[in-house]
């Protein structure tokens, strides 16, 4: 498991690779939250394109980051193409509150729309 960060149109993009299970989530949580606080970024994109396995520990990781980002007044979007991971995510009904996109560009656009709605524009 590895996590790297970059920015795309002012959104913090978190690229996770490898396997997300209970063992991996503690390190992921710490590193992502530290980056979020240091960058004071409003919006986050969790890029799961290179995740090869995820169980329900990943659901907790996603919901936890969503709550933190919302606490800063921002929004969260997911980038995920793998059908098995999408299935795990949908079991928890995450797609009702978090947009699941096929690529980062689409995620950026969905966050733009969500931010306008949040701001009441």
């Amino acid at each position, binding site marked *: 498991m590895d996590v790297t960060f970059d920015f795309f149109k002012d959104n913090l993009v978190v690229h996770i690779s490898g*396997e997300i*299970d*209970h*063992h991996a*989530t503690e390190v992921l*949580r710490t590193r992502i939250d530290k980056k979020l606080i240091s960058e004071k970024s409003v919006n986050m994109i969790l890029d799961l394109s290179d995740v090869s*396995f*995820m*169980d*329900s*520990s990943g*659901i*907790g*990781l996603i*919901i*936890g980051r969503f709550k933190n980002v919302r606490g800063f007044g921002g929004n969260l979007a997911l980038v995920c193409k793998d*059908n*098995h991971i999408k299935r*795990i995510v949908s*079991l*928890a009904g995450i797609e009702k509150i978090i947009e699941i996109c096929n690529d980062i560009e689409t995620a950026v656009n969905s966050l733009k729309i969500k931010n306008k709605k949040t701001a009441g524009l």
Partner: protein
Amino acid sequence: MQNINEMSVIFSSKSENEAFARIVVSAFLAQIDPTVNELNDIKTAVSEAVTNSIIHGYGNDSGQIKMRCELFLDAITIEIEDSGKGIENIVEAMTPSFTSCPEMERTGMGFTVMETLMDSLSVDSKKGVGTKVVMSKKFDSLKECK
């Protein structure tokens, strides 16, 4: 039905062994060549059961987890057993979104995931004795080959 192969492994309740358990099951299943989706379903269910034993069964204590697999012509049965503290109320524990560890960002979806991805799931637990999860799955891809 007579099984065609079986195996069992015992490992420590360390979170590093969640991946180990998944790899062991994948390697055992290689002999029947299931589809990627079937393999992913089984790996995920195993991961959930082992994680439950580590977090809820043993918590801050350490102990052993036994995983036993029985392979049939077109199905697998997997038992995952711990000697941890046991589940006081199985019905409550199996309710979607129920978790005793929200502070650890647990979502209470473990049993729901196991039930969804496998064909059958049973949980036997006794307070202070431990928990045994038995789950099975038929391989539709192999049924077509027979």
